[in-house]
């Protein structure tokens, strides 16, 4: 039975069985009805050595095509500094559980406190939890929070400018949780104030969720939105890209009560969609309705500064079905990831990431218009991703780009395509893409 992860010798097993007072390992299942015992062989491979496992995955990787990324839409190819993987693979962080025993978990608790400090700083909120699964589920939790905070209302409004995967998840949670959703259409690429006002006038609105930067890449001008929602005693909620908040107006400045989104943009690798890390932040009057883990500062019996999971009376292990949510974990290690990222970048580095992305995106935007394949779809401010109207079938452009190993021009709506530029994209990269597309046109 010798295997690298099982330390038992035959003699160990014998001695342990003797202490227990049974004759065999099978006897440990004497309480299990014999007709449910599985006696067949699994239809699975034989054990592999590490070398063979490595070779297996190298073989599997051959079936993937690595592409140069010019796509955003909720997952952003920002540069990840070398330091981060070294820190997050420290086994004291990696192999720990949720910090239930604070005396031996100060490392985890401390970085979560730092994470909370940084996320509130970026969003302009007072409080945040220790992170969520991803942006889309964080939006669903925000919806439930709005319902819990505004008693007896039944509706939540979503901007149609939200990413489709976010709307999809919120719809699923709403369907089962008994929340009625209303939708606010976009006009000229931006959430319509008129439509919002009309929906609010219909009444019964617990909350409204609008993206800070929408699915077209446009930075939403939310002038008057929060006031209109507050006038109806609803909560104003913003779905944000935290990287962008180093430079664009914060949800706090827009008057938001709750902010959610995905922090993948803070240097987390694309990794085919996960693990990422959602965030959920709010004004302090709503902290008791905030789901998930929250870390607070306190002191130990000797007066030393220490940190602990706090406000736990909101949670499922105490409240069971009356908890604010069923969430009982966070994406802790990914919260550490973005905390280390924000520490390295600081306010200047994060600004510079945005400057490089903005500069590159605007250069690509203008040069793509030269190719004759596109025209402007909107005339609105954008940061690092934008939408153009394709003058030939979008699929054709996307396929052509793939031939030169580039992923971009993803169709977001009939005839409209997305491009995104980060600091990883150089002028030479863009020029090469544009020249190629020009030839394609010819």
């Amino acid at each position, binding site marked *: 039975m010798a295997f690298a992860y099982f330390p038992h010798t035959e003699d160990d097993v014998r001695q342990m069985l003797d202490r227990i007072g049974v004759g065999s390992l099978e006897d440990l299942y004497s309480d299990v009805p014999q007709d449910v015992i599985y006696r067949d062989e699994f239809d699975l491979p034989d054990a592999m050595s590490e070398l063979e496992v490595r070779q297996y995955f190298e073989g599997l990787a051959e079936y993937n095509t690595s592409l140069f990324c010019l796509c955003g839409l909720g997952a952003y190819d920002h540069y990840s500094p070398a330091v981060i993987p070294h820190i997050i693979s420290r086994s004291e962080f990696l192999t720990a559980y949720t910090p239930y025993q604070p005396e031996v978990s100060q490392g985890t608790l401390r970085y979560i406190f730092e994470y909370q400090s940084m996320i509130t700083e970026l969003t302009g909120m007072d409080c945040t939890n220790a992170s969520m699964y991803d942006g889309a589920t964080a939006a669903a939790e925000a919806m439930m929070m709005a319902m819990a905070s505004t008693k007896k209302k039944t509706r939540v409004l979503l901007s149609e400018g939200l990413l489709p995967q976010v709307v999809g998840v919120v719809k699923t949670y709403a369907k089962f949780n008994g929340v009625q959703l209303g939708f606010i259409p976009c006009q000229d690429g931006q959430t319509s104030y008129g439509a919002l006002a009309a929906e609010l006038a219909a009444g019964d609105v617990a909350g409204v969720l609008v993206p800070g930067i929408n699915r077209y890449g446009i930075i939403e001008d939310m002038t008057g939105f929060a006031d209109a929602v507050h006038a109806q005693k609803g909560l104003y909620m913003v779905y944000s890209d935290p990287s962008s908040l180093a430079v664009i107006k914060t949800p706090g400045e827009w008057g938001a009560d709750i902010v959610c989104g995905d922090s993948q943009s803070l240097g987390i690798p694309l990794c085919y969609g996960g693990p990422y890390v959602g965030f959920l932040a709010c004004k302090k009057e709503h902290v008791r309705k905030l789901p998930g883990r929250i870390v607070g500062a306190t002191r130990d019996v000797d007066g030393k500064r220490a940190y602990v999971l706090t*406000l*736990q*009376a909101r949670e499922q292990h105490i*409240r069971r079905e*009356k908890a604010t949510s069923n969430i009982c974990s966070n994406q802790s290690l990914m919260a550490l990831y973005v905390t280390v990222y924000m520490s390295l970048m600081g306010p200047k580095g994060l600004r510079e990431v945005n400057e490089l992305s903005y500069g590159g995106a605007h250069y690509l935007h203008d040069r793509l218009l030269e190719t004759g394949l596109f025209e402007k779809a909107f005339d609105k401010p954008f940061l690092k991703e934008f939408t153009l109207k394709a003058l030939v079938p979008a699929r054709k452009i996307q396929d052509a780009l793939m031939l030169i190993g580039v992923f971009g021009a993803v169709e977001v709506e009939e005839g409209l395509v997305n491009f995104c530029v980060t600091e990883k994209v150089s002028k030479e990269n863009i020029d090469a893409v544009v020249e190629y597309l020009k030839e394609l046109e010819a």
Partner: protein
Amino acid sequence: MAKTVEGLYYSESHEWVKVEGNVAVIGITDFAQHAMGDLSYVDMPEVDDEFEAGEEFGAVESVKAASDLFCPVSGTVVEINEELEDAPELLNQDAFANWIMKVEMSDPSELEGLMDAAAYEAMCANE
């Protein structure tokens, strides 16, 4: 041993009621605060909220526990004890001196369904 106060009405869910005219002053009992331990938060209703007798109107929380509060009589909230927002420990110090909310009763006859101090003590003794 948890104390009780004569002349108050008591509910099975450990709230006390003191009647002042048509207003019910409502709090939690000494027994309840003992059972909860150090309180960290009182979730209170808002003025003008309306409750039926037996309806949940808030909660008390300690570090490791939470307990819902149930309104012993039907009516409308006319005042809440804002002091508890910053000092939930007042309920630990003296549960009877620190009320949680005042309710304008819509049906004072509901008081008859509540217990007196002796009956409440007897109930607690069995818990």
